[in-house]
């Protein structure tokens, strides 16, 4: 095997690990920030690592059937596959992975793969809270996909491509970032992003105080660990996707981390200071202003 | 002996007189006689039909040459319709064989034979006054048959029929008088040549009188009030007789006169208009009927409306389609009346709702009803499909899309109420054990009809090839005059 193949294989290994580490660290930082906002000291940044390791090291694991067993696998499959089809760093063979074989539309569907798999797993548990959470989550998804897709469509028709790599190529130079080229699309997308990250006010899916953490309520031990792993990777993947599309992507890891972190702060900070929407309120929220921004974005491109 | 068209009138008439006498000897003979008559007539049809298709056979009865003598005109149209009457008459007899069990059966068969005499007479005659006579024969037989069950409803229906029917005869007779007073002749062909002798005003009166008078027989709206009652109160085979024979003869008479004397665009427009009214109002009324036979009666009216529309368009294509539709309707409606007759008999109620579950209890009869319903809606592979298709084609060729859509509206309504009745039959419901079975003769009659309907549906060519000469004969007044006067 020649070196490019090795690089590829190395990329397949290193990308998810990086995503995991970064994602989990972000999670820790978020906890600290939340604590500080609440006038607390907060846990150490590494707290989420200990949590995940603890969950992996749980001695017993109880499940209610095959689908609960498979649900977390679906989730991790979806997050890692999505990650593989997103170019993490610009023009770097190590970090591009499969990104030339799929496009934004594929990613949109791939992202749902995990949710559906998790939903199936949650359904298998037979816990009514899980089912309620799933119903809420799926409904919420219909809500935020509308502005999100509007924004993406605006961009896709503007540059006549559905490939992320090509979109990144368009944005050479600071002023060409799509956040500046099509700000309305960015606004619509970032509002949708709030819902996508499930932070308040859109945390109705997991709402621990209401429905006992919803879909995850019967998951413990390795299942929960796998879910959290997948969630961390998925968070990172989404952030990279947004960075690639709107912030011109990144040529090196430091830039990437700076950009993704700044981006991540938007939902996090919104989430800290907000109460929770009911599901239908959330949906109607998404179908109002974010959608209007999305339509404006499209109209600007068309006219 | 060579078969002569006059036998179409003579033999049923003879049979009608013979039947009461035979009744003294044996009931079985009475029952068999009409069958023999129809078999013989069909034999005649086989002989004469091809000839008539080529060239009309004109026969003089009383010894004088036309226009003075009484002439019978056995043209292609008449041949076509008489063959139809023969077939329908035969199956009606077959059906009646076991269905009419109520005494006096010789009366029934006598009236039936009289009715056939009258109908074939209307179809055959070339003479205006004779047509009146045959119309009266038909009508009187029909009135009596309506009241054959001698119950209150039947009597009432018969009385209504009589009331309206006498308008029909009177108006017709008046028109004959007017025509005779101006032209001095009663022969159709002769009158057609001399029609200009009649002043416009009188001509207008004649037209109105004929349209109304014959419109009553042809069930044209709003002159068809007698029909629903008569159809539903008479015994079922009589319903088939009305739908399959009497009305067709009446319509033929009207169209023959109109086409010969008054074929102007305005009259044709009027026919189309009345046809549409008849069709739509009858279908709408049929949709809201609760009694199966009344529903069939209204449907029958609707179908006649369709035929009138097609005739009113007056092209070659539409006329042949109309004839085809008349043929199909006669067969299908007979089938429906037959099936409905036994269904009513089995359920003991005329209401459609009471038919629930009979589809499982009496599968064969119900099956025939379903076939008839599908056929009359115009669904392939039954014969009704082709005639409807041809009518629509001719309407479209005439370029009037509005008529096309109105006809189809009527068809949709028709489809709905027929299927409602059919699914009612097949609603699962425990039916009290019913030992009565549909007799074999009834099933054979229905089977024959269903087979013909299916056969014609799969191979319409068998009828279609006779349609062109028949339509030509009806449309082409000049040929008629030439042949009628030889």
């Amino acid at each position, binding site marked *: 095997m020649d070196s490019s193949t090795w690089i590829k294989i190395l990329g397949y290994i290193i990308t998810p690990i990086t995503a995991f580490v970064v994602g989990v660290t972000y999670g820790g930082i978020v906890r600290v920030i939340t604590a500080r906002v609440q006038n607390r000291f907060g846990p150490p940044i590494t707290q989420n690592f200990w949590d995940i390791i603890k969950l992996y090291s749980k001695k017993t694991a109880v499940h209610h059937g095959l689908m609960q067993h498979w649900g977390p696998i679906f989730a991790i499959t979806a997050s890692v596959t999505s990650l593989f089809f997103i170019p993490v760093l610009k023009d770097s063979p190590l970090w591009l992975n499969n990104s030339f074989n799929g496009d934004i539309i594929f990613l949109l*569907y791939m992202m749902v793969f995990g949710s559906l798999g998790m939903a199936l797993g949650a359904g298998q548990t*037979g816990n009514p809270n899980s089912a309620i959470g799933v119903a809420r989550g799926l409904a919420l998804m219909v809500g935020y996909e509308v502005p999100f897709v509007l924004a993406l469509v605006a961009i896709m028709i503007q540059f006549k491509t559905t490939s992320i790599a090509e979109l990144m190529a368009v944005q050479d130079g600071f002023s060409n970032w799509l956040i500046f080229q099509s700000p309305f699309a960015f606004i619509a997308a970032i509002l949708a992003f709030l819902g996508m990250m499930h932070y308040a006010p859109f945390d109705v899916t997991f709402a621990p105080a209401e429905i006992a953490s919803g879909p995850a309520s019967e998951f413990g031990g390795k299942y929960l660990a796998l879910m959290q792993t997948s969630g961390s990777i998925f968070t990172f993947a989404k952030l990279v996707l947004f960075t690639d599309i709107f912030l011109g992507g990144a040529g090196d890891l430091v830039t990437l981390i700076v950009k993704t972190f700044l981006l991540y702060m938007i939902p996090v900070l919104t989430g800290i200071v907000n109460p929770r929407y009911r599901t239908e309120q959330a949906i109607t929220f998404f179908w109002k202003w974010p959608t209007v921004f999305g339509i404006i974005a499209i109209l600007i491109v068309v006219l | 002996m060579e078969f002569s068209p006059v036998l179409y009138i003579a033999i049923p008439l003879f049979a009608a007189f013979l039947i009461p006498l035979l009744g003294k000897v044996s009931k079985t003979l009475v029952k068999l006689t009409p069958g023999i008559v129809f078999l013989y007539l069909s034999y005649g049809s086989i002989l004469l039909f091809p000839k008539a298709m080529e060239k009309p056979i004109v026969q003089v009865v009383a010894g004088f040459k036309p226009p003075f003598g009484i002439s019978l005109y056995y043209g292609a149209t008449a041949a076509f319709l008489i063959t139809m009457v023969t077939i329908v008459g035969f199956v009606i007899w077959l059906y009646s064989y076991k269905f009419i069990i109520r005494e006096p059966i010789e009366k029934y068969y006598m009236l039936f034979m009289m009715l056939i005499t009258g109908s074939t007479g209307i179809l055959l005659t070339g003479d205006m006054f004779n047509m009146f006579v045959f119309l009266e024969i038909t009508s009187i037989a029909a009135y009596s048959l309506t009241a054959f069950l001698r119950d209150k409803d039947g009597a009432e229906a018969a009385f209504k029929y009589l009331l309206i029917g006498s*308008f029909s005869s009177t108006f017709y007779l008046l028109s004959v008088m007017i025509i005779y007073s101006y032209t001095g002749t009663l022969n159709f062909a002769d009158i057609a040549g001399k029609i200009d002798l009649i002043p416009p005003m009188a001509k*207008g009166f004649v037209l109105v009188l004929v349209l109304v008078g014959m419109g009553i027989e042809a069930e044209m709206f709003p002159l068809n009030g007698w029909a629903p009652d008569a159809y539903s109160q008479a015994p079922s085979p009589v319903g088939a007789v009305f739908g399959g024979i009497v009305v067709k003869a009446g319509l033929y008479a009207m169209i023959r006169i109109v086409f010969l004397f008054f074929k102007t665009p305005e009259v044709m427009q009027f026919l189309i208009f009345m046809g549409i009214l008849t069709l739509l109002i009858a279908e709408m009324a049929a949709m809201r009927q609760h009694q199966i036979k009344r529903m069939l009666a209204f449907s029958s009216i609707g179908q006649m409306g369709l035929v009138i529309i097609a005739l009113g368009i007056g092209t070659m294509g539409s006329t042949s389609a109309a004839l085809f539709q008349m043929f199909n309707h006669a067969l299908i409606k007979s089938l429906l009346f037959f099936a409905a007759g036994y269904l009513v008999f089995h359920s003991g109620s005329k209401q459609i709702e009471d038919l629930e579950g009979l589809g499982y209890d009496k599968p064969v009869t119900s099956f025939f009803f379903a076939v008839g319903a599908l056929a009359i809606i115009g669904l392939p592979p039954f014969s009704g499909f082709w005639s409807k298709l041809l009518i629509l084609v001719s309407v479209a060729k005439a370029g009037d899309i509005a008529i096309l859509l109105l006809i189809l509206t009527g068809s949709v309504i028709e489809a709905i109420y027929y299927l409602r009745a059919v699914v009612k039959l097949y609603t699962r419901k425990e039916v009290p054990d019913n030992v009565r079975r549909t007799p074999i003769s009834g099933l054979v009659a229905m089977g024959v009809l269903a087979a013909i309907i299916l056969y014609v549906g799969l191979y319409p060519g068998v009828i279609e090839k006779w349609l062109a000469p028949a339509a030509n004969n009806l449309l082409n007044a000049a040929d008629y005059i030439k042949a009628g006067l030889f």
Partner: protein
Amino acid sequence: MISVPVILSVMFLGGVLAWLANRFVPKGASWTAAIIAAFAGYLVFALPSCGGEYSLALGSITLVWKSTNYSALFAMLVAVLGFLGILYSMDFMAGKKNLGYYYMNFLFALGAMLGIVYSQDLVSLFFFWEVMTWSSFMLVIYSGEEKSHKAGIKYFAYSAIGAYLILSAIVILYAQSNSFLLSENIKMFSGMSLGTQIMVISFLALGFGVKSAMMPLHVWAPEAYKESPSGFTAVFSGALSKMGIFGLGLVIFKFAANTEIFGYVRETLAWLGGLTAMLATFYAVIQSDAKKLLAYSSIGQLGYIIVGLALGTPLGIMAALFLTIMHGAFKAMLFMTAGAVYMRTGTTSLNDVSGLITKMPLTFLTALFGIISVSGIPPLGGFISKWMLYQALLETNHYFLIIVIFIASTAAFLYLYRFIFSFFLGQKEKEVEHVKEVPWSMLVPMMFLTLFVLFAGLFPGVILDPIGKAMGYLGNFKASWEPQVVFSAWGEKINMQVIAGTIGTIFILGALFIGYKNKKATRVVSTKDIHTAGEIPTENENLTYAVNFNQPFERAIAPILKWSVDKLFNLLGENLESTFEYLRYVYTGNGQTYAMYVILMVVILILFSGSIFGIHL
């Protein structure tokens, strides 16, 4: 020599044979029907995909049949689904009454569908169209229940309206071209007047739209799908409704394509299709009956297909035809699943059954693959059609339509999840203790289709080959693909090998990991053993959250749901009927009134004879 009439007569005579067999041999009908369907299916595949012209003169009308690439595609769909449907019915219908009737109409419907696709003249098209309508109607009313009859009448009424619209278009065409031949009419169509063109196209589109359940003509579908036996529903939704698509394809690309109004036609249909997809999906979300849910889902999916066709780009048509095939497969799977559940539990209500996964694992697997495919999640077949559809929408600049489609596609998860959750997941209740997996003859079709959607996802190119040929019939459309790669007009590509490979590898790695880790300490517990805040659920306590499952979403779309075409049509129907009721009192039943009518008629005619007849008295 295999020709179209042979196939048709095999089907129709086979139908009669099945009916006869039922009378004489127990179980005869199902075996006969299965053999006939298999044989006819073989004939369909053996028939050369182009040619085999055959004409049959029926009086003045000549019926012409021919196999084209386009018809071959649909014929294969019909043949395969028909055979699987009958195979499925063998055990599904076992022990029911009137099996002869069932199989006869089943085969008639299949034969009629084949007749439609092979027709080269309009009369034979319409002939078989009507045969298809009534034979499927017979199957809708099969159960003999009051509800099925209502559904049947509704189905037939709408079908009749649609069919008569088609018929009007046919006779209008004939009046202009003097020919019933499809090719003649297509040739002469561009020469006809604009009015005729608009009329013919709209009539045909509406007529075919009824069968393909295009909004607002869809209202018959949910009830009819629900009431027909599931073995047939699979064919009903999978193949029969595709006849509307078949016709729409002809209308758009054979008739409308050569006219000035091509653009408007496509745009209108595309939007109708899009709205159909979205609204039907919304309605599906709020259904609580599995078959009705699937029916609305069908309507929505057919909306996508119409959109694809109406876009008129190679990719759009390819997406539409691919989805036609895929929808045939996955919707058949789902209906079969619903039927299997119905067979074992006696209900299709999503509120009543739950936790069947352990009892019916293979059925569950079918349902799982079915919903993954419907929702368009990679790597199964549904995804590729969705991808092509979006690419086609993007390349034709349908910015807002794509949103509508996307909402529909996303909202589909709601009902799909509900379907699989309510039946198979959730609490395992005592009521389903006795449930067993369905017999093999039902599993075989389900598993076959499961493998098919998987195969279609991995090797879309293999299925795109016949589709490409069919597109060649519709017009000069070129699109490129490889066995595992599909390309878009913008030069994007989707490589199913890589996608499936990645997904498969990670999935297997994940499964290995989770399966290995603490394997011994992993144990299964019953679904009663859940977090209930310490309470101990009793045996009879219902812990399943199934009723009003999608209520959060329902509340959000309540303003949209307030308006329902269904209600409008019902209102219209009721009003019409009461109008008829009034009109029927024209016939008072009173002899005097009738006599008065006669007199009035005479008077009116005489008074107005000048204006009516042009004869002045």
